[in-house]
């Protein structure tokens, strides 16, 4: 097992993990602050990617493409990300208003079901309006592949990892430095007394959904750059896996969700070379097809030994029936 091979996988895992982390962040915010499972989050990610697609196509139409373009691709990308984040935030706000606010005092499981249903509606609406076929995400920046000592790195990979880590840091700053962020953290700790210090609960709830959705939109666009095939169901498996990552990270821990997202990405990617190594060491013949099996067994094992997640405080949340 060469170092090259390991590094290659490491870089791939970084990119893959950043998507999980970005999506898990939004999931974790809603989960930590409002104690709700937002099962619609994966589909908000999907909507974000499609909004990004629409916005970027529109922008490309305005500024032109190729050599005749008025502005460089990266600028279009930045503008696309910003506009899409803004627009998708509204989707999140609507989801909160329609699906979650009426259910804030209901059993949490009911809210989870509502989220699930909103997700189905978003998927169906997509098929209804766009016809269900796969769409290609425009390649806003030229792809370059660099060969660094046998390790292949593309400029997009670097950009994706940097942008997502940047967004995470920005969120971290927001949450630790601003009063809004403080209010969010306070809400995660004690929902009931937050109004007693003059903080409007509903505003914070809306904001939580908005920020989570905006991050999902950013993830969606970066995803479109890395894996340029969009389909209406792209958010489903992401949603459920981000759910795993968010809770694995521990309630109330935004950095926990990030790390768990990266970790999940690492586990998923690294299982494949891991199997190879095992095969060589013990002359086995396991295929990479056991990836999910092994990856989720690891998750299961982590949870059995750390029943409150990686960074979460022990608490006893009951489903309010």
């Amino acid at each position: 097992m060469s170092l090259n091979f390991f590094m290659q996988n490491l870089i791939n895992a970084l990119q893959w993990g950043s998507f999980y982390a970005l999506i898990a962040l939004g999931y974790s915010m809603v989960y930590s602050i409002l104690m709700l499972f937002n099962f619609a989050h994966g589909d908000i990610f999907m909507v974000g990617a499609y909004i990004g697609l629409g916005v970027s196509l529109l922008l490309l139409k305005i500024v032109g493409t190729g050599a005749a373009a008025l502005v460089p691709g990266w600028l279009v990308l930045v503008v696309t990300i910003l506009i899409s984040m803004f627009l998708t935030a509204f989707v999140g706000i609507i989801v909160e208003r329609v699906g979650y606010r009426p259910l804030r005092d209901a059993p949490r499981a009911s809210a989870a079901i509502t989220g699930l249903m909103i997700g189905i509606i978003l998927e169906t609406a997509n098929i209804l309006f766009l016809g269900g076929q796969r769409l290609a995400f425009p390649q806003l920046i030229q792809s370059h592949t660099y060969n660094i000592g046998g390790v292949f790195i593309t400029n997009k990979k670097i950009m994706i990892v940097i942008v997502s880590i940047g967004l995470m840091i920005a969120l971290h700053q927001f949450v630790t430095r601003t009063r809004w962020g403080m209010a969010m953290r306070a809400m995660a700790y004690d929902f009931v007394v937050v109004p007693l210090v003059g903080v409007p609960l509903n505003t914070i709830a809306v904001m939580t959904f908005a920020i989570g959705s905006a991050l999902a939109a950013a993830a969606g666009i970066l995803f479109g750059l890395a894996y340029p095939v969009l389909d209406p169901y792209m958010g489903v498996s992401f949603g459920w896996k981000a759910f795993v990552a968010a809770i694995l990270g521990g309630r109330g821990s935004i950095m926990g969700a990030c790390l768990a997202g990266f970790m999940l990405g690492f586990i998923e990617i690294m299982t494949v070379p891991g199997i190879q190594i095992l095969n060589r060491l013990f002359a086995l013949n396991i295929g990479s097809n056991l990836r999910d099996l092994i990856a989720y067994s690891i998750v299961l094992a982590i949870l059995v030994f750390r029943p409150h997640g990686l960074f979460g405080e022990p608490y006893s949340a009951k489903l309010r029936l």
Partner: protein
Amino acid sequence: MRKGRLLIAVLLCAGLVISPSVWAASDVINIGFPIPLTGDNPDVGASSKNAAEMYLKKFPTVDVGGKTYKLNFIYEDNEFKAESAVKALTKLITEEEVLAIIGPQASAQAVPAGEIANNNATPMISPWSTNPNTTLNRPYVFRGCFLDPFQGPVAANFVTEELGAKKAAVLYDIASDYPKGLAEFFKQAFEKIHGPGSVVAFESFTTGDKDFSAQMANIVASGADVLFTPQYYSEVPLIVRAAKENGFTKPIMGSDSWGSGDLMGLCGDDCKGFYFSTHYAAAGAKGATKEFIDEYTAAYGKTPDDVAALTWDSLGIMIQAIQNTGGLSGNIKADRTKVKDALAAIKDYPGITGKMTFTPEGDPIKCAVVVKINEEGKFAFHESVCP
């Protein structure tokens, strides 16, 4: 309450007076399409429906035994689920009283649906299903595509002879019937030529996965000369890109599932120069095939994919069989059996995807072509392989 009973009695008598046969006799031939209009693969359903609607527009009627029948197509959503497919098929057979069935497309629905069609003695052609179980021991069930045991060796021979490959890598979706079957047959065929162990990387992923970088790293490290990936057109761009990004510069070979009009739109320049085995070559097609492609492109704004082409052919051969019966009796049960017999008897039906003759199992014997994606992004004919 007495009035109610009286009313029922009156209606009952009236019902008996008007003989049912007056209503049953109609000159419409119903054909059912249990296809996935919702669920995980709505575009498969959309392609099937497109092809069918195009056919209906072109041939709204059919003459059987001197009588002109109107064709009526009934699309039933199978939601890409086995349970739903079974229900949809039963509904088509018992409620809509279809004469014949085209679909379901994917094996996961076609296998259980075939059971229903066979039990109800209704002829069914699954245009796209490659699982042997679909037609196995089911005289009423046929399929429209060639089977993996044929296509696998075609691809293996091609990469050996044309590309000079000695070591091959395979990347496929373990959770999906079609790619998995094909991957295994390719492996078998390739290792038969080059000896055991010549498939140096046999990597897999799961449906819905978007990231293939880990598998690609393995493939690159294995030093394979060629990558065979029998994946759907929606996954091909991601695989091709992962190959590029991980430094895989060797040729890539695909299968008929690559052959979609959407492939190049999704893939861009990345896919150019690669090969895949399929039913026909869109670029430079002639005759009926060209006509079909042109009409389809005009109607729906994209070149037809393999689903559409196979649906078109399955429909065509089914209508041919109906015509070959020489006349329908009006008794739907008897007619269905007649159609089945006619279907089995058809020789060398000139489909747009090649000449078709069914084996006793109900599987077609047809030729495959290998297509190269040329520099214009067109699917150009490279060679033809017949069984």
